[in-house]
């Protein structure tokens, strides 16, 4: 494999790492957000029932 082709492997690896992080964190944050909203709605129901 020549130098130019080897360089492209590293470029592809760098962009793959970037998109893995960006997509992974987006999925994580949306999951955290959805669970937080569900727990919040449940807590509000309990709080209203206690009043």
């Amino acid at each position: 494999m020549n130098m130019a082709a080897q360089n492209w492997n590293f470029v592809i690896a760098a962009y793959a790492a970037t998109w893995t992080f960006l997509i992974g964190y987006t999925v994580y944050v949306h999951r955290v957000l959805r669970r937080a909203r569900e727990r919040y709605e449940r807590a509000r129901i309990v709080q209203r029932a206690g009043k």
Partner: protein
Amino acid sequence: MTSSVMERDVPGAGRWPLFGAFALCFLIGTQTLGFLTSPPDRDMGDLQKIMYVHVPAAWITFLAFFLVLVYSLRYLWKGQERDDLIAASAAEVGAGFNLLTLLLGMIWGRPAWGVWWAWDARLTSTLVLFLIFVGYLSLRAFVDDPDRRARWTAAVGVLGAINVPIVYMSVKWWRTLHQMQSDPSTVDPAYVLSLRANAFAFLFVMIYFIRRRYEAALLERATENAAEAAALAQ
């Protein structure tokens, strides 16, 4: 005495999903621009294209930790829980970009320097910065009392953010393997537009991430406060 998150403070998603979609499209556009318009570098060839993700990731790391500094100091001064939650959200996002910066640096370093890692001043100080904020996030996970958690992590956040100028200046203070700071004045004009555009794209992504993480943190705190109120009412 701290000011707690109340039910009225909990926001909806608003137009943030739209902003996230815009940030994503903008990033795809700027990365395409970088690939299509920048010629191979005289010394590094196509490896130069890693600059469009490595340098913005490093800048965004610094910016996120600067936000941690500002909001941690605000929390210590005013005691408002919202400031603590913004600082924590920025710390988590900053730590993510910090890790990405380190990984991209390693991927670039292997073909450019012949090694994945060197105990160079810039690399080592960036690793120390990352470890400080891993400590910050661990502390948040282990301390249950919200006031104590906020005060302790605000102190760690301030100390951690003070490390940012050391990381930035490390290439000047200790001239080792890593090149000097990259900015539009030190980069070939052929690469400046793509570098700037990618930096803005990363900035938009960071804003989106911090805002959504903050929204989740507000909901988590409001849930804790609602549960406490329900327990007191019984």
